[in-house]
């Protein structure tokens, strides 16, 4: 009892500390900044935090926390604007958003789709904040048990998703692209022995293929080429209409929220898996669970909501291992951690003793930032839609220099721009042949995790897989993987049967 009372006391004093006009103003400003950075293709939350971390040195701790978390929250959400309106995700986390968001925009519901994304992000953050406040001690023990073997299984689970991300074409194409992404992730020094793999003697390739340039390439450059190669590029309808979703749409948005938020928070709590993975897993789960799973990928508010809820729900989730184990759940979280360390907060097992209020400060700040995101996001929707609806023949060329800067900025390396272009061109050809691009990103993200996880797990087992099989969380993950494969195969068989019946009136792919 007393402990609950003390916790409440801490919560209240944290509230007192944050609810001052200047801090709230700062949260609003920083969230807006994050949204804008996130909306620009190639500029990610990580980059925004890396650039702004210098600014926070001179700030007081609470201000720095408010500032950085708000940028983080804003940036993850901001990625949905460009994903929906021009089919180029502003951040990796928004790649899953584009699958349904862009078809919606082409149906003339771009504004609504964005608002839907914002509402979903907001709900995801809020639910996940509550999880952060109340479930941290429990999740801490689970996160502690997450070792190399579990990472490998998580990555393997990602592969099984690739097939179902193939959209209209066959799952084989999804897997092919996913494994090509895996292969691309193998390029460079291997993470265990620093052995150069597939570098062809190039010193630039030693650093490996960076995720951001590859992502911008396959989504950005290839989209530009696809759109501009048409004689008359598509136009989005002229009048915007109401950007707020109606009751029916709202229902679709809120339906998957609880599940997606829990998936997002859970994946966020896994150290090393970030917002992007959360969005994919949640999207895939939604597609399997929903009665209208077939509509996913053709402009489903539900699908959009699955992805957007999860990626924002990931942020509070990522705070759990960060604050309790001092292991950040994503690169953005790593930046945040670096910043608070510089302010003298040492996250880790001692935090609960040294600075017990900090957990609440973080949670409340995230809460407020979510509100700021909701309000600013909706205010910004109209102008954003106006800008992003410009004549494609003008907008698309302008996107190219931005992608160039985006590819360059993470590592200030001209080589990355070249990588981006090559991925873009290959992506263009593969997309023309009906290969989905989403699994490539998944493969790139998970490739290193799978490779490292599996080999390191075997090192732990001294070359044998047997000691690993009894691990409890591993067992759960293996169960999930088997379920996912079985349900995927069933679905595929069912779809095929349906497809054969209707093949006389076969429909073309929705896009490309």
């Amino acid at each position: 009892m007393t402990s609950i009372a003390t916790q409440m006391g801490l919560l209240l004093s944290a509230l007192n500390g944050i609810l001052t006009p200047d801090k709230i103003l700062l949260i609003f400003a920083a969230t807006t900044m994050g949204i804008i950075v996130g909306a620009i293709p190639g500029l990610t939350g990580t980059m925004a935090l890396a650039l702004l971390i210098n600014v926070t040195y001179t700030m007081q701790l609470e201000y720095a926390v408010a500032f950085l978390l708000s940028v983080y929250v804003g940036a993850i959400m901001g990625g949905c604007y460009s994903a929906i309106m021009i089919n180029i995700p502003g951040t990796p986390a928004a790649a899953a958003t584009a699958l349904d968001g862009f078809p919606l925009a082409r149906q003339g519901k771009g504004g609504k789709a964005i608002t839907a994304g914002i509402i979903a992000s907001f709900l995801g953050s809020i639910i996940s904040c509550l999880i952060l406040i109340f479930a941290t001690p429990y999740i801490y023990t689970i996160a502690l048990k997450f070792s190399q073997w579990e990472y490998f299984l998580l990555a393997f689970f990602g592969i099984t998703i690739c097939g179902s991300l193939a959209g209209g074409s066959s799952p084989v194409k999804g897997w092919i692209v996913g494994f090509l992404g895996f292969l691309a992730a193998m390029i460079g020094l291997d993470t265990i022995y620093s052995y150069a793999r597939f570098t062809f003697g190039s010193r630039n390739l030693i650093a490996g293929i960076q995720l951001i340039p590859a992502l911008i390439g396959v989504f950005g450059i290839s989209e530009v080429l696809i759109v501009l190669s048409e004689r008359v590029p598509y136009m989005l309808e002229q009048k915007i209409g109401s950007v707020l979703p109606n009751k029916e749409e709202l229902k679709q948005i809120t339906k998957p929220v609880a599940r997606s938020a829990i998936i997002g928070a859970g994946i966020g709590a896994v150290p090393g898996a970030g917002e992007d993975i959360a969005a994919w897993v949640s999207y895939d789960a939604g597609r399997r669970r929903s009665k209208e799973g077939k509509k996913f990928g053709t402009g489903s508010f539900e699908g959009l909501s699955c992805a957007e809820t999860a990626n924002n729900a990931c942020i509070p989730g990522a705070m759990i291992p960060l604050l309790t184990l001092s292991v950040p759940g994503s690169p953005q979280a790593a930046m945040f951690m670096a910043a608070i360390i510089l302010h003298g907060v040492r996250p880790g097992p001692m935090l609960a003793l040294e600075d017990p209020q900090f957990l609440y400060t973080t949670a409340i700040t995230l809460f407020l930032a979510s509100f700021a995101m909701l309000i600013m996001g909706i205010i910004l929707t109209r102008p954003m839609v106006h800008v992003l609806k410009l004549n494609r023949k003008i907008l698309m060329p302008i996107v190219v220099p931005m992608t160039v800067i985006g590819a360059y900025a993470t590592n200030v390396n001209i080589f990355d721009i070249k990588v981006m272009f090559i991925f873009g061109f290959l992506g263009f050809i593969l997309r023309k042949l009906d290969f989905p691009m989403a699994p490539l990103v998944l493969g790139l993200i998970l490739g290193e995790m799978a490779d490292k996880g599996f080999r390191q797990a075997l090192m732990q087992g001294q070359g044998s897989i047997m000691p690993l099989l009894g691990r409890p969380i591993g067992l759960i993950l293996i169960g999930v993987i088997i379920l996912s494969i079985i349900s995927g195969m069933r679905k595929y068989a069912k779809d095929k049967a349906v497809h054969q019946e209707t093949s006389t009136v076969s429909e073309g792919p929705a896009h490309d």
Partner: protein
Amino acid sequence: MKKAISILLVLMLVVMLAGCGTAETGEETPEPNEEASGDEKVWPKTTPTVTIGFGAGGGTDTAVRPVVAEMEKYLGETINVLNQDGGASAVAATNVLNKPHDGYSMFATGSGAFAGFGVNGTSDSTWVDWASFHAFTGPAAIVVNPNGNIKSMDDLKDYYSKGTQNFAIGSFGNGPHVQIEAILKLMGIDSVNYMTLGSCRDAGIAVVSGDAEVAIGSFSALIDFVNAGELNALCVTTADGWTLSNGETIPSITTLVDGAQDIPQLCETWPIMIPRDAPQNIIDKVEEAFKHALTTDAVKKFAEETGYIIVGYTGEEADKFYALQTAAYSWVQYDAGLVEISPEELGLSRLEDFDWEVEKQKLNK
């Protein structure tokens, strides 16, 4: 046809302008900054940049940024900090060296990673190319689970003499790994099964969660687990022991293992580096600011909390330290079969034969 001609014209124009462009940038003289006209600035032309060879938020990043922040304050000028991950910082080193050596481009890395460039074949750059400033040294610590059977270095020896057992490390070739290789050699333990966990922090967590009995990692990554009593530290690799906040002292390896007096020199540092042939006045100013930064409360507090020891190597002391580490790290990695290029080919002598007076001659070449 008309269209084709117009495209051709456009393309020609583009190529021509490309030619002009290169010429233009060659002549370009940046205007002197007006604000600087009064008192002299160290970097009057543009903002200088420190390129950190590892990702944002990583160990090197966290160790370098606070020092740079204090240097900025002292000089009253902005210093950009960039992260350029890749090839254990070799990519960043190459890029900085390829830029003009005008004192505007600096580099920061971990000394262990830098020392391994040669044998890993990732870069030809050695300490000879750089003037370096080492703020902290970070000891490593051998940690065990407090509920386990291992309570001392003797227990450790027993544990590993009973067949091949796991030893958790962050990654091969990092500072703690190099140190434990040397320590195990001294202790006569020759068969351990390393399990790499990706980072020192993760190696520590593997011990907390019971996946491994023993780990070595940089002390800064483990200190709070030790403070919280979730890990038990058997020793630290500095010459002196470390006193915890609760008053307990972790002994130094030098008092526990015979012949371990060289081990402390293998502790890693996170130096800020400038090409050696950059303008001397800039190097001097940076050194001055660097030395000042180490006296500030912010940096002192940071070092204390993170388990670093302020050393402040500059000039010849820094060169000697770096040369010694290069030799030691290269040989350990080579002996462990991790690299194929022999340190011998690179003209590096073994730690036992290391002679600074001989090594120094490399500067004259």
